[in-house]
């Protein structure tokens, strides 16, 4: 096993071991923290597909995170108030069932990613960063003024949604659900990166004109991976909303986009487990430094600066050495 393999294995062991210990020791707050980290990791795994593999610096992934959140919020809001979502030719009702909510979250954010990707991929470089940021702001301001679903105040859900056969109110069972989804997303990322499609994306990121010369459509591949990336982040948004039983426009804010990006960079861009390491570190710091000082963002800022300036490759890069790619 490579050094990176050991780092990854240690991470997985910690993500299984710590919550299990917390469950046995009766510390539900630690499980909640771990759930938060795992959900952020899932969002960042989504972004890492666009950023690391596709080379698309999306500053608007909060759009998908927020759409996932609002998919959950709106469906559960209608279900808990017994209001039909649509009552015309046929009847659509809200739901409190996680699998249905997830499916809706994934579909909605994939569609949004398709639309945003189609428009944004006409530009590149700084313009791509800025246009994705603009889409994020559009959704942010739209939800703020959408008073039917709470506007600026957001939506609260009274009871966490259910999953067939599980008791999601039990922290460890909800954690297990989120962790399983994270593992599935990691497996999917791994498979995509190793597939001919992934190799082509890798090549498109490095030398786009050569890929074009051999007759492959690199732009389309980027669009496809952007859609998958958005869908995964959207799923994370639905879980995050379920964890807090609350959605608000801040899920769409550009700070959220920035934070998802921080998870990826902190851990290491284009590393399979980079986003996981980054999200875990972020949540741990948020908790530890947040206890020490009200102004913990200063330390986060300083650490981030240090990583950008001196430790390219993030935490996984620091621990596992340089990546074996041909950069």
């Amino acid at each position, binding site marked *: 096993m490579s050094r990176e393999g050991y780092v990854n294995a240690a991470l997985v062991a910690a993500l299984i071991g710590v919550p299990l210990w917390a469950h046995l020791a009766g510390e539900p707050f630690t499980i909640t923290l771990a759930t938060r980290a795992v959900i952020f990791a899932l969002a960042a795994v989504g972004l890492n597909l666009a*950023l690391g593999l596709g080379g698309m*610096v999306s*500053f608007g992934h909060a759009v998908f995170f927020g759409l996932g959140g609002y998919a959950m919020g709106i469906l559960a809001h209608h279900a808990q108030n017994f209001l039909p979502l649509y009552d015309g030719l046929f009847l659509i009702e809200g739901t409190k069932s996680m699998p249905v909510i997830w499916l809706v979250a994934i579909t909605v954010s994939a569609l949004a990613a398709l639309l945003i990707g189609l*428009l944004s991929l*006409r*530009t*590149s*470089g*700084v*313009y791509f*960063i*800025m*246009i994705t*940021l*603009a*889409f994020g*702001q*559009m959704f942010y*301001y*739209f939800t*703020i*003024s*959408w*008073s039917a679903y709470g506007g600026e105040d957001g939506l609260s859900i009274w009871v966490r949604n259910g999953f067939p056969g599980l008791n999601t109110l039990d922290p460890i069972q909800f954690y297990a659900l989120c962790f399983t989804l994270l593992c599935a997303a990691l497996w999917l990322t791994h498979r995509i990166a190793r597939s001919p499609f992934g190799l082509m994306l890798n090549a498109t990121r490095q030398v786009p004109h050569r890929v074009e010369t051999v007759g492959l459509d690199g732009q389309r591949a980027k669009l496809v991976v952007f859609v998958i990336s958005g869908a995964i982040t959207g799923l994370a948004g639905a879980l995050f909303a379920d964890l807090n039983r609350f959605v608000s426009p801040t899920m769409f804010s*550009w700070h959220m986009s*920035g934070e998802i*990006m*921080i998870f990826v*960079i902190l851990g290491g*861009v284009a590393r399979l487990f980079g986003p996981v390491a980054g999200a875990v570190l972020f949540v741990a710091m948020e908790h530890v430094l947040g206890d020490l000082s009200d*102004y*913990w*963002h*200063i330390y*986060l*800022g*300083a650490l*981030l*600066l240090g990583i*950008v*300036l001196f430790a*390219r490759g993030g935490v996984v890069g620091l621990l596992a050495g340089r990546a074996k790619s041909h950069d």
Partner: protein
Amino acid sequence: MSAILIVEQVLNGLQFGVMLFLMAAGLTLIFGVMGLINLAHGSLYMVGAFVAATVAGLTGSFLLALIAAMAAAAMAGAVIEMSVIRRLYHTDHLDQVLATFALILIFSEGTRAIFGSFPLYLDTPALLSGPVTLPLGIEYPRYRLALIAAGLAVALGLWLLIAKTRIGIQIRAGENDREMIAALGVDIRTLYTFVFALGAALAGLAGALVGAIQSVQVGMGEPVLILAFVVIVIGGIGSIKGAFVGALIVGLTDTLGGIFLPELFKLFMEPASATQIGASLSSMAIYLLMAAVLIWRPTGLYGVRA
């Protein structure tokens, strides 16, 4: 809807536009000359506003407050350029976005630690307070009119600096070919620090000027920063002319959209939902505009074709 209201709103839009130009000019200069995306530009705006409010509170002089705000923002700009930004010129945009995002965190929390979470207030100077009567009997705040004049004066000064002076020639040359002007013996490091400090001073000035009509608080720079980015993206990144045109377009769209879109929807909808839809559409309007411009011209109105 009366003509007076329309004129007032157009003036408000102009005022907002020229203030956005002060922010956008620095951003676009820094991107044009150094190729750097500076998210921390909004923090320099905030620094200007806080310093102005503090100095005005201590001395009672608005002019001194403005000078102090520009000086402090320029100094803060020079310090971060020499300590952090300088290392980012040769890295990719992702690193620049993150490093300057980190600077925002440090500046915002630092300011919160020093000044606390409560907003400060900066009064408009006595000389410029009160309304002024324009032709057609329109009453308009004197201070806002002064803001428009100040913004236009700075735009003119900036144009003279870039078009007519030696340092302006160096800046334009730096945009085109940085190796060449370094080879010709121009101290490129000092030039970069100067350009960054100049952009910072403009942001500080904007912060101080706007601080007198809004509350001065942590995070005040961020909405303006995002709008300034929209401005320079619409205008074409690196183009001062683009920044000016873009700033006026964004300023007018934002201000007029908020007033006229709900009215427009009322023509064919019931008032309640018209107000609702009009309001949400108007807050999205400038982003829709930006997306439309980028789809039509992927490098902005006056941008160089990639």
